[in-house]
């Protein structure tokens, strides 16, 4: 059952088509991923869903009700974790949580109980009385998430919540997302980190240049490049002779070089090893290592756009 539906959504800023006719739906209880590089239009999409600004055209419905016409229909059921830290740095974590709890209408013992629960979830209970400006980047991110959870939202939108933080905090945040989802919360997770989306999301839409270029489960997306494999070969040196010879091998579709490394795009890559080794032996180059990469979302994105996610 779809909780949120986005239909032919557009947002233009003068000449810039930030979002250009995207359509997707988010099912109740899932973690839905929006994957794309910086500038793909993910945050603009999130801002429209969050009721922050109106679309140029298109429709967004929450439980069947248009949020453009009735923003209140979603505001109290929505939690938004912005990419940037949206907190008051000179106030303590506790004061921030209290303010945002009040903003969502929580009061007294109910609010205190929620703050206690949330501080447990985000793992920051011991530092709640410290000022936000004294926190590390990871701790600020956790409070940033906590502030969006106080009112027990049905739908949580997380916009690149792990940008610029240490691995430990990142892992904690990813685990928190899974835990919240297990408890029944529907989550929209945007990121340009392919691994995070792969780890968390059951369904994914890949965005680029304001458009959704592919959607589906992880398996469905990988199927787009079914059979295609990437082989990284490290050599003692790479020259034009070697490249010309490798290109003659059957199933090799593309050869890229980077210093003493060759990246081959192949179909049925397992079958080329014999030829690869024998052909290389004919040249003056020696193979140091071979690494076969399985198809992933990065590869899908590369396949669809011709550029890497982090370009």
């Amino acid at each position, binding site marked *: 059952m779809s909780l949120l539906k986005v239909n032919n959504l557009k947002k233009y800023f003068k000449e810039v088509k930030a979002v250009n006719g995207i359509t997707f739906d988010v099912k109740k209880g899932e973690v839905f991923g929006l994957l794309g590089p910086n500038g793909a239009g993910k945050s603009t999409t999130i*801002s429209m869903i969050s009721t922050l600004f109106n679309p140029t055209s298109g429709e967004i419905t929450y439980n069947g009700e248009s949020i453009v016409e009735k923003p209140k229909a979603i505001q109290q059921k929505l939690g938004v974790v912005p990419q940037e830290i949206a907190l008051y740095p000179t106030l303590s974590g506790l004061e921030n949580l209290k303010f945002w709890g009040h*903003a969502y209408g929580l009061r007294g013992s109910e609010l205190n109980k929620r703050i206690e629960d949330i501080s447990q979830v985000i793992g920051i209970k011991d530092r709640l009385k410290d000022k936000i400006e004294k926190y590390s980047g990871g701790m600020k991110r956790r409070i940033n998430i906590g502030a969006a959870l106080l009112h027990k939202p049905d739908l949580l939108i997380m916009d690149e919540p792990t940008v610029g933080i240490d691995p430990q905090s990142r892992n904690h945040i990813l685990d928190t997302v899974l835990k919240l989802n297990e408890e029944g919360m529907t989550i929209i997770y945007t990121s340009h980190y392919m691994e995070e989306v792969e780890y968390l999301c059951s369904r994914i839409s890949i965005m680029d240049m304001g458009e959704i270029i592919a959607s589906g489960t992880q398996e469905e997306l990988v199927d787009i490049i079914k059979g295609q494999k990437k082989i990284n070969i490290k050599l003692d040196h790479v020259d034009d002779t070697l490249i010309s010879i490798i290109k003659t091998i059957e199933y090799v579709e593309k050869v890229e070089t980077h210093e003493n490394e060759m990246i081959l795009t192949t179909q049925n890559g397992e079958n080329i090893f014999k030829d690869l080794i024998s052909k290389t032996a004919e040249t003056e180059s020696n193979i140091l290592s071979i690494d076969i990469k399985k198809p992933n979302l990065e590869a899908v994105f590369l396949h669809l756009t011709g550029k890497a996610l982090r370009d």
Partner: protein
Amino acid sequence: MRVFNIIFKDLKVLLTDKKTLGLLIIMPIILTTILGAALGGTFSSDSDKRAIKIAVVKEYDFAYEKDKFMEFPNNNFLFQNMNQEQLKGLETYMENFSGEFNPEEMFFDGFLDNNDMKKMLQYQVLDLEKAKELLRNNEISSIVILPEDFIYNMYVNFFPLPYRNELDIKIINNPDNYIHSQIIEGIMNSFAETSDISIIGKVTYFETGIDEGIDMMTLSNSEEIIQSFYTIIEEAKVQIEEENVDKQKPLSSIEYYAVAMTAMFILFAAGEGAYLLLEEKDNLTYARMTVAGIPKSLIAIGKYFTIFSFTLMQILVMILYSTLVLGVDWGDKWLVALITLCTTFSIAGLGTMLASMCYKSGNYKMANAFSSILIFLLALIGGSYIPIEVLPKFMHNLSNFIPNGAALKAYNSVMLGDNIIQILPFLLSLIGMGVVFTIIAVYILNTEGGIKNVKYNSAKT
């Protein structure tokens, strides 16, 4: 409730910022204390040492002018029809009058040596040359010249006959001490004006009597009436001593600067308020509040009342500190409360207007310009650095139409004992400014793009 939540949070943010707290609360306290102490001599009337020094020059000849007064009936047509007996009676009456009434005693003993006046003025009787020398050396603030015929005119004015001569007291001021000069002029004018009350009463009595055909000697010899004139004269003296002298009492420097610094530093509250909306937007908390369903108008109202509350807090702190620690008497507490409310209303409007301008423009240039340049200009015009009276007349008038200037004048007025009618123009000015500023703020925030289209990161698409 949400608006209180926003106000409470904003006040916490302001109060937890040590720099802001230092600028808005601590700085005015320190400056008031320092300026009040350092410039004590300029304003204070607290001790003899700080009393205004003047010289009094007598250009009259007392004995000659007293004799001249005694000759008065001989040179006046009103007395030409009197018989010898009547003239003898008048002469005896004038001798008695001139024996009992001494204009010098009235001016020096009754007026300048009055206990209240002595706290303000220290005088010495000198000849004109010596007085001018002291004035040039800044040893005195003014020279008061009692001119030729001063004694004669005083006798004529106070003698129970229908005559009134102009009392012409001349003052030579020290241009380097404008404030003291103004005070001396005020004091001397009050002496002349108060004397006029009884003199006009006397003249009116005689003119009415003569019009009714009553014989002038009968009028002059009426014991009851004459006694009443002495009473009028006595009352006039009391008026000089108490009402007029107090009325012109200058504010002490501590009193003046307690108000002046308060009036100046509340402008900084408006300046700080100017940052509130755009900072909220830049911190992305504005967007977060919008997502939480807080109406944008409520956020703006929250800012308005944050500035209002902070300004109110500032003024209360200054009033409490200056009253309890520096001993400043702010005057009638209800009038002070009324001025405070009108002032905070005006400042909150100003701060919100600036905040809306910053928000609309998307940068802090307006707030920065206000805090770094405009405040100091407004403080100068409003009398926070030097007393308003010293400023050119157009600036003096202009100060009525800036919040700090109107507030300063209103507070000073109440300190001097003025009532609500006298401070009403300042209150109306403050309210008017508050209304205009608020209307401009609402207009700006309601214009397209003013408070709409908030997003979490304006740099992103």
